[in-house]
Structures are given as structure tokens and as C-alpha cells.
């Protein structure tokens, strides 16, 4: 994130980086995102391929967690039924700030194929929790997961850590 570019040796002896504390924190934060995986439907099957060695989701620094207390973001992959929507909201509220949400696939984004006759499906997970990154597809290709993860890392690295809504000035 431009941090190492500043290793320009302004003092003799070198080894000094001048930077903002938020740059360093965001550098670590965006490269080590642990996620609460919420696999609900076929998008979760595609996410298995994403997690396997060929696409290797862990190279983004992500580790799957089973507890919301340890997670930085929640990955909602699949059809959110009303029965599950209550649980998603509880788990989201249990996560520690700062927390993020990735919504994966058409069902989770907007209801998908259930938008008209799905009496049991929530028409978009953003109706109950705030979503940071939407990944389109039915289900998305693993490349789409990669782009979504890169977008989330970009978003995190431009945020002030104590105030999610404040946006740091871009350096580039």
C-alpha cells in the first residue's frame, strides 16, 4: 500500500519509514482478514473451489473462523431464508468492530431466482445488515471471489481505523 515505497533513506543509516499510523494498521488489517463463513446454498460450493489449492483464497490472508467473535468480515454465500435471516443478524451483531460484509451471489444480493414467488426468501441480505462488497453471479466464478476480496482490501486500506465512515486520502 505504498508503505515500502517510502523507504527512501532520508537519514543516514537508513531503515526508517516515515508514515501514518493508520497506514501501518490498515496494511496489517487488510492483509489479514479472518472471515465468518456463512454457507447457505450453491455459492458455498463454489466457495469450496475458491478455498481449495487451485485458487487458494488463503493467499489473501483470510482464515475461516467458526466464531463471530474472531471474525473481521462475514461472507454470506447463498440464499438467505427468513428462518436464517434472524440468525445472520444475531451473528453479525456478535462480531467485533470493525466488521465488514461480503454478499455473494444473486440470491444474497437481491433474492435471485426467488425474487417473485419466494415467500420464504429475504430479497437481499442488505435489508438486514450493511453490505460492503457485492459479488454478482449465480454462482460467481472463483475469479469473481478474488476481485471481491481485492475490493474489500482496498476499502479497508482507505478507512480510518477508529471511524469506518471516514475515508483516508488516496496516496496514489
Amino acid at each position, binding site marked *: 500500500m505504498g508503505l515500502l515505497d517510502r523507504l527512501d533513506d532520508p537519514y543516514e543509516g537508513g531503515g526508517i519509514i516515515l508514515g501514518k499510523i493508520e497506514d501501518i494498521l490498515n496494511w496489517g488489517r487488510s492483509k489479514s482478514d479472518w472471515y465468518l463463513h456463512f454457507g447457505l446454498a450453491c455459492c458455498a460450493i463454489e466457495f469450496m473451489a475458491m478455498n481449495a489449492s487451485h485458487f487458494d483464497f488463503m493467499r489473501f490472508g483470510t482464515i475461516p473462523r467458526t466464531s463471530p467473535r474472531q471474525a473481521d468480515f462475514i461472507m454470506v454465500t447463498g440464499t438467505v431464508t427468513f*428462518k436464517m435471516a434472524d440468525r445472520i443478524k444475531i451473528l453479525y451483531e456478535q462480531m467485533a468492530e470493525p466488521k465488514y460484509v461480503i454478499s455473494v451471489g444473486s440470491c444474497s444480493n437481491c433474492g435471485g431466482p426467488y425474487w417473485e414467488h419466494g415467500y420464504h426468501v429475504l430479497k437481499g441480505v442488505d435489508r438486514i445488515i450493511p453490505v460492503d462488497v457485492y459479488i454478482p453471479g449465480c454462482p460467481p466464478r472463483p475469479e469473481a471471489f478474488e476481485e471481491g476480496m481485492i475490493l474489500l482490501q482496498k476499502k479497508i486500506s482507505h478507512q480510518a481505523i477508529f471511524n469506518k465512515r471516514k475515508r483516508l486520502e488516496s496516496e496514489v
Partner: protein
Amino acid sequence: MLPNEIYDKLKTEFGDAVIEFDDKQPTDPFILISADNLFDICHTLRDKDEFLFDYLMCLTWMDFAENVGVVYHLYSMVFKHKIVLKVIVPKSDPKVPSVEMIWRTADWHEREAYDLIGVQFEGHHNPIRILCPYDWEGHPLRKDYEAPEYYHGMKVSY
């Protein structure tokens, strides 16, 4: 044993409780029986040496406008023969005896039928919903079902 032979044997044993036999449809041949004698007929079909229907393949339902039907697909692992039973009850009072005591498979199938079409299975040990949330109102797969506007404060329609 062929379906019409099974029908003849049931007809001589149970008389009017066995209403009709139909093999003209493009589906499997079925026997329509009255709901009152369903448990006895199923018990006979499972335990009598000439039938031995030890396997309930599927329990499903149909929605006619004023009536609801329950369909039982039976199979015998011993004799490799199968039969379909149908029961039709009025939608205003949809009571059918439970066959959960005969085939344990029927436990969840009957809960599903209760959940989605609203058939009351009398004698079931745990007649609660299985798919919808416990506080859901109505039975969604009825043809005249209308989805609620809100569920727990979440809008249902798009």
C-alpha cells in the same frame, strides 16, 4: 403381486373402505381409500405375509380446490412389488391418521405435509413444522396461499 390383485385382496378384506382402483392414468396405478381405515389398511399391507410392504418410499400431497389428498408410495423389499395409496379429505377439516407408528419414515414426511399443506396427522408424536419457522402463519404450498407482507419486520415481497 400386481396392483389390481392387491386391490382385489384389500377389497374383500375391507369392503367399502377401499373406494376405487385406477390404472388408466399415465402415473402409477393407485388405490383410493377412505381416511378412517387408513391405519388398519397400512398395517395390513405392512404385516400380512402376502403383501409385506416394508418400505414407505414417499409421502406427498395434492391440493384440489376444496380437498387435499395425501399420497403414499409403498414398496416391498421382499416381493419387489409396489402400490400407491391415496386419501382425500376436505380442506376445511383435513384430518388423516398418522402412519408414523407403521413406517418411521413417515415422521418427517408427515411433518412436512403438515407444514406446507396443513394436513393434520392424528396420532403423530410431534406434529410441528419442519421447514418454515415455528411462528410462520399459513401453509405455503396451498394454492390459495398468500404470503404475508412482513415477517419479523422484514419485507417479504421484492
